[in-house]
């Protein structure tokens, strides 16, 4: 049997894992068209304060993005790198610097022109027990942002935004 101290250590050693899903009335490739364009993400990702694509705009394995999200008094986030790019199926990333995080967009067909879209994010603040406390407090904001993001993606795709090219800066 683990001691209480060990149990607590394990507890704050765990990362925060969040997942939000939505069903979109569109084919997978239509949704993928939006997700595969890095410059579109600020249009549906809620809470983003920074999204600098370093080698875009098309996503591919190795694309790096400096992203931040407002959580409490700080804009927290990481330099992330795309690690999986399976068209119309999976887009995953890992952090390179900043907050340790990994995330995934997952598209699965549930019927003709109907797709289940899942957004997963796992992250862990540094700093041991205090970092764990911060994770628990901040998770409320992050979860809300993820929920709004999938809902915003659904609204935009179903409104036909995915079929138009993204506006380019300049």
């Amino acid at each position: 049997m683990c001691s209480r101290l060990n149990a607590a250590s394990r507890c704050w050693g765990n990362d925060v894992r969040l997942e939000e899903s939505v069903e979109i009335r569109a084919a997978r490739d239509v949704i993928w068209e939006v997700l595969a364009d890095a410059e579109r993400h600020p249009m549906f990702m809620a809470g983003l304060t920074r999204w600098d694509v370093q080698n875009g705009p098309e996503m591919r394995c190795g694309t790096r993005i400096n992203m931040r999200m407002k959580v409490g008094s700080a804009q927290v986030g990481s330099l992330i790198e795309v690690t999986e790019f399976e068209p119309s199926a999976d887009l995953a990333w890992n952090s390179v610097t900043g907050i340790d995080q990994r995330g995934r967009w997952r598209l699965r067909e549930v019927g003709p022109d109907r797709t289940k879209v899942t957004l997963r994010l796992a992250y862990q603040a540094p700093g041991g027990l205090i970092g764990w406390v911060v994770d628990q407090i901040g998770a409320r904001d992050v979860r809300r942002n993820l929920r709004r993001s999938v809902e915003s993606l659904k609204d935009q795709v179903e409104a036909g935004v995915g079929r138009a090219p993204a506006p380019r800066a300049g």
Partner: protein
Amino acid sequence: MARDEALPELLDDRDPDYIRDTLPAAWLLATLWHRAEIRGLENIPESGPVLLVGNHSGGNTAPDTFAFALAFASYFGVERRFHQLAHKLVMASPGIGAFLKKHGTIEASHENAETALNAGAAVLVYPGGDWDVHRPSWQSGRVDFARRTGFLKLAIRTGVPIVPVVSIGGQETLFVLTRGEALSKALGLHRFRLKVLPVSLVIPWGVTVGDFIPRLPFPAKLTTQVLPPIDLKEKFGDDPDLDEAYDYVTGTMQTTLDVLASERRFPVLG
């Protein structure tokens, strides 16, 4: 950023891993206790040396400095070299000095600031120093650098842009009744670069003379606005008039501080 020259010894103590591990504690303090808001970080150039010039508030605990340092490290990453200048008495304090050194704080002097800028760092200075940080709390909305122009000479000499950092709320984390400059002079403290000996109302001690003992800051809301960079040579020519440049920089900061002050509806609560 790779550099050809070895890092000056002065800057050796900064420890990015240590900063990273202490960010959550700073986040808790800034978010829950001070409801801190840091706006305009995107105005800071993405890389290269920059002179961040702030108005100084909150006594020696300077909570808005911690909130800004948290925001800077979160936004740009702990990898970006960031140094803050502090009074030598603060740096000499047991425990506190070592803690601050790991965060990149160095003793305030023109030479040290120049060394850090030449190493490509972002450097945060408070030209008003102890005079500004211990201004009476009812002068919270006033930028007062006592016409010190060293920061301007530093920016001109090194050719780095000035980025103003304007904060409000720090002066409500304690209530400074008077700077006590006459008291400091009478006791001869000015010989130790201590021009003030503030009399303040603080938790839990009540009325204190000086700002040397630990205290609990009032949970005042902190708001900081970072302004766009000012290139003095571009604005005022190759040989800028210091009075003109001083009035421009402090005037710009005062205008912003007036706006921030107008947003506050209640003392401490913000």
